[in-house]
């Protein structure tokens, strides 16, 4: 937390410059780059949302695809059954994610650590299987095809994704500088101590889960509108969504504001950006980077920035506390 504050103090102009660049440049870029940018914004939103629950509150979820998928399906189902514009999904999707999130939280927050992670994983898989098999109501394995409002034009989608990404970062920033933020981090650092300080831990985990589900759902809704096609194997994917959200946050730095942003950018660049050049090996490269980071910079690029700087200055890092 200390790290956020110094960053904010020193460099409020950094976000400002990034913002101007993000608004002004994309119209001059080609379609492929715009596509990359849209994906980046989507992943920034998702990583930031996951980070609120996982990185700050310490509830490592292996099943955030539930919220992404529901966010995507909210609009998809409206379109499938009533032919309503999938844009309504921007409201229905996140709403559905929150509605599902509340009972999920009530059940899974009784579990701690890896057991919480696994129960979320089980839920994610359950959703995937149910959405694959329940053809009459949910469309089944073939998924749902909707229409693209803006045709082949990418720019409108980009700006929507940009606004949502910025909003998610802003909301998390504000939360983390209020009572909520202090309580979230307290829960992560020591749940027993937090209870002893009078923090109702389950309730505050829920306060972290709701915005997290909301923004993950929004990212899902953007995906649905942009792709105009969803299928359960993609939006409820364990390897493609749930795990990538965690690894993206991990690479950038969990429990930091900038970490998920950086991680998402790296992830999209590697996974989509260089795929054209090197083929499917790009995914392997990302995995190798993730392994090396966890082994040598376990708090991510931003979390372990001090360590990186020391390494480049050629000094040995100082370890506190034993072997």
């Amino acid at each position, binding site marked *: *937390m200390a790290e956020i504050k110094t960053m904010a103090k020193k460099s409020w102009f950094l976000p400002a410059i990034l913002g101007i660049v993000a608004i002004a440049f994309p119209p001059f870029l080609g379609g492929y780059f715009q596509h990359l940018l849209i994906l980046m914004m989507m992943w920034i939103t998702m990583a930031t949302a996951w980070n609120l629950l996982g990185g700050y509150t310490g509830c490592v979820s292996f099943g955030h695809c539930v919220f992404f998928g529901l966010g995507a399906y909210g609009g998809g189902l409206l379109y499938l059954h009533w032919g309503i514009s999938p844009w309504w999904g921007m409201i229905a999707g996140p709403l559905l994610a929150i509605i599902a999130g509340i009972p999920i939280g009530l059940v899974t927050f009784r579990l701690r650590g890896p057991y919480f992670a696994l129960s979320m994983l089980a839920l994610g898989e359950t959703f995937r299987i149910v959405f694959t098999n329940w053809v009459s109501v949910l469309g089944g394995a073939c998924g749902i095809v909707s229409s693209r409002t803006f045709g082949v034009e990418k720019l409108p989608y980009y700006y929507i994704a940009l606004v949502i990404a910025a909003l998610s970062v802003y909301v998390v920033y504000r939360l983390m500088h209020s009572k909520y933020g202090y309580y979230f981090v307290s829960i992560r650092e020591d749940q027993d101590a937090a209870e002893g300080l009078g923090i109702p831990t389950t309730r505050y985990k829920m306060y972290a889960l709701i915005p997290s589900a909301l923004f993950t759902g929004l990212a899902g809704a953007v995906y649905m509108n942009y792709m105009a096609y969803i299928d359960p194997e993609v939006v409820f994917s364990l390897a493609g969504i749930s795990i990538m959200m965690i690894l993206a946050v991990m690479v950038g730095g969990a429990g930091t504001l900038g970490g998920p942003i950086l991680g998402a950018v790296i992830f999209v660049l590697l996974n989509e950006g260089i795929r054209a050049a090197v083929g499917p090996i790009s995914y392997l490269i990302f995995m190798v980077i993730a392994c090396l980071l966890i082994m040598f910079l376990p708090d991510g690029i931003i979390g372990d920035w001090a360590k990186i700087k020391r390494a480049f200055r050629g000094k040995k890092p100082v370890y*506190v506390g034993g072997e």
Partner: protein
Amino acid sequence: MAYLDINHVVRKFGGLVAVNDITVGLEQGEIFGLIGPNGSGKTTLFNAINNYYPANSGEIIFKGIPITRKSTHEICRLGIGRTFQVVKPLRRMTVLENVMAGAFLRTNSATKARDKALEILNFCELMPRKDMPAKDLPIADKKRMEIARSLAGDPELILLDETAAGLNLVEIEVVMAIVRKIRDSGITCFVVEHVMKFIMGISDRMMCINFGKEIARGTPREIASHPEVIKAYLGEEYAKGK
């Protein structure tokens, strides 16, 4: 009725009766010391009071409100703060942030919480440490930080669990002074301690337990010369010899 009433509290772990029918009442504004050999059930009694491990039977009443079935955070909100035998710092938060986390119990504003925390840090003489991450503090400061964190939530009763263990003599003096200051500010203190110099020096009244049962109660002087206490600590021979 006393300020904090503990009535016939029993807590078992499997076949082991860790706290066996303890009854005691604390008066408002006193420092009450609880001693006993290793494994005699002191920390378990604390854990029963703020419901980390609920009592199997018996009743605990604070200011006339039964708290036996209330959850830990509700009990804290009612005004019972505590520290931990094995310190539980919020490791990656700074000292100030730790204490602020405690202060948010009574306010929603970050500014007010910060002011309160700074005031408490001053009270506990931790100001110079305020921007250090809690995990890097030496043990004595971690223990003091726990007291500060708990005080920040404006408790009326504070449970101090082995605050002096692992401290050197100078550090013990500092903590003793702080505990006295806490009592003087009107907060009742319930202290569990192994370091006799500490607990004998500050307690108004004391109780000694062994095998989960009360074996002696009285002033520190009475406790120190009580044959049952000497027996529990030093063995049969010493009790007979004196």
